[in-house]
């Protein structure tokens, strides 16, 4: 049986520099026969936003649950500021925002905040004031005394985000914080996350949106099937694993035989990486100036209508495709 070892302050066996807030070393977790997290290791520096990018089922939520002290790893170490992640005192340093906006519908926004404040050991007259401030920050001040069942989905999500901040945590674990949000609210949540980083918080952001990871993260770990397959800053990852360029072709009408179209374009693509989805063709290329006209003529020859053609730089989605052979969001 594997022995789980947690970090202890002052333990010389643990490399814990002053700038390291979280250390995850060789952590594994399995549920029955399924391996959810498989030997994952990484360090998160204080004050950075660390993205965990991967599709649904990659093991991000399980990993966050172990960092939050909800689940115990089968093996490996997790330490926060050199302390055991399962210790209730350590959990006070962590703010966990689950994927779903889980709040009590029959309590008001303020009552929900007060409940979680109590769980963080906060009491006294100033707590209500602190809760109101956080609700104001999230734009929920005027709805504080309304039952949550009257809130919209976006309001619940913001309340959930405010609850995460109630214990003034040093480390924030945000699990898919913008899933299901419309672009405007998503943008406002991003701004809140960046503001928290400016305040010196360390943030781990689990997401399957590559734009989110790209926009917000200082460093990203790409996860697939329970493993970290690559780690680095978004630019670094794109330089290391991405193609030189990407050609996006918007089709005016869907191809009658998409498979045949992909086969025809493949010879021009870098490592044969061509994707077709929702009337769009995406081709990884090494020399766009040379291959773009060839791809266009090939498509014209096949009778495929073109609407627009763009030559862009690669994204983390392209990195993920390169590393796993699959797209982040299949569809």
């Amino acid at each position, binding site marked *: 049986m594997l022995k789980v070892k947690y970090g202890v302050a002052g333990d010389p066996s643990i490399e814990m520099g002053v700038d390291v807030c979280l250390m995850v070393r060789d952590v594994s977790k399995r549920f029955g026969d399924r391996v959810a997290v498989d030997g994952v290791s990484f360090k998160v520096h204080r004050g950075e936003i660390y993205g965990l990018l991967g599709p649904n089922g990659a093991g991000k939520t399980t990993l966050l649950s172990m960092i*939050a*002290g909800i689940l115990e790893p089968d093996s490996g170490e997790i330490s926060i500021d050199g302390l055991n992640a399962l210790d209730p005192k350590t*959990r006070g340093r962590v703010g966990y925002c689950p994927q779903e906006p*889980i709040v009590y519908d029959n309590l008001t926004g303020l009552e929900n905040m007060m409940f979680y404040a*109590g*769980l963080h050991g906060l009491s006294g007259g100033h707590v209500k004031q602190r809760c109101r401030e956080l609700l104001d920050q999230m734009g929920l001040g005027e709805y504080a005394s309304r039952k949550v069942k009257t809130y919209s989905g976006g309001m619940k999500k913001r309340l959930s985000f405010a609850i995460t901040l109630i214990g003034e945590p040093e480390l924030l674990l945000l699990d898919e914080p913008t899933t299901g949000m419309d672009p405007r609210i998503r943008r406002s949540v991003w701004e809140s996350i960046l503001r928290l980083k400016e305040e010196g918080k360390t943030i781990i952001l689990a997401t399957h949106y590559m734009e989110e990871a790209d926009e917000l993260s200082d460093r990203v770990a790409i996860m697939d099937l329970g493993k970290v397959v690559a780690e680095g800053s978004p630019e670094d990852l794109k330089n290391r694993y991405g193609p030189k360029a990407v050609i996006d072709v918007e089709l005016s009408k869907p191809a009658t035989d998409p498979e045949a179209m992909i086969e025809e374009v493949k010879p021009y693509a870098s490592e044969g990486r061509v994707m077709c989805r929702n009337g769009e063709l995406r081709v990884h290329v090494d020399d766009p100036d040379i291959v773009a006209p060839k791809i266009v003529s090939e498509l014209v020859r096949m009778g495929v209508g073109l609407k627009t053609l763009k030559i862009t730089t690669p994204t983390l989605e392209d990195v993920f495709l390169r590393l796993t052979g699959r797209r982040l969001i299949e569809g």
Partner: protein
Amino acid sequence: MMWSAIKAFIVKELKLTFRSKASIFWIIAWPAIWLLMTAYVFVPPATGQPMTLKVGVVNYDVGSTSPFNGTTLIQILNESEYKGAKLFQVKVYENETPMLEDIRRGRLDGGFTIPEGFGENIIFGQARLKVYVGARSLQSAQIAESILRGFIQGLNNGISMRKVNETLRYIEIYSEKYMPKNLTIPVAGNRSWLDFMRDWMIGLASPINVSFQDVKPKAFVERSSILGWYTFGAIGMSLLYSGLIIGSTMAVREKEAGTLRRILASPATSTDMLVGKTLSGLITLGIMSAIIVILGVYPCGAKIIWNPMNPAHWLAIILLILVSIMVIGIGMILSLIARTTESASNLSVVLGLMLAFIAGIWFPKSWLPTWMKFLADIFPATWAIDGMRSALVYGATAAELMPTFLKVLAAATISYLIGIIAYKKTLRRYVVA
């Protein structure tokens, strides 16, 4: 343990409980319905008062010239009283057919058919009388026959004594003429012949001169005490299903709401949650019990004794707390098999009501068949509820209550400890799910 977390759980649980219509129904409406129904249907305000039976009479002895005849009997029926209340309300019929029809339809508690020659025969021989026993209501069905038999017995004795006295009057007249003076009977203590004959004939008519005296404890027969008994029955019943719901849904409710992971990610521990939820459950059950007592005493008229200086009464309150802890513990054990809030609640209600009905909590043990009596004898909740009844309705002392207290304390400790093991196991299962 973190007090602020425990307090947060208590406040949250109480708010959620008392904002839920379903909870309000089970905590207040359901016991209130049972208690009011009991007070005004099964133990109506006249309970404990002498009952008046509605009887029919068919008199074929009309026109009899005997000093005691059918008409005299009807008059006696009309004038009979017990403890100041009329014993019978008499309806006279022309013939038996409509009277029997009314008895069969439950309109009469019984009926008498007085045959022709009843008056003649009662004076000179043995008269016949037909008595029909019916049932007009649930209450009268149980006692109509005994009242009718008691009445006929009394009537028989009365008529016998009248006949004996009449006969003795003639014996006295004729013994003056035909019997020797100063004749005594040695085997009867040398009593005079006339005294001996008087005692002998009275003994023939009524060998035992019985005197009944009503010394029943008021607590067992007064309506207010009966309702006191049922008030604690309502507390026991509500406490069983509510306590089981509180225990069985302790973890699953948070799991289904999705809040469990967030709670476990906070500095609060699963023990804080257990303690907070148990305490909020005890407060809820305490409020529920207080409401039931108020309903029992005021609209229903139950008699419940409360004297803050009486240690037995405080022991009864501790019994209430212990039985609540015990039932919450059993609920936590149920959470091992009931894996959704709905199934846990349904199972708790069914089990709670069933136990209340078959374990002597709602129905008196004396009404139950043998196997249910056995269940009532070994079920700790029944011990606790009976203990509360004995102290707060029948006035038992603290010393009398102590054995019950010790037994319930042991049962509560064991079931809550097993419940904690089940709760921890359930939490582990939900966290990895």
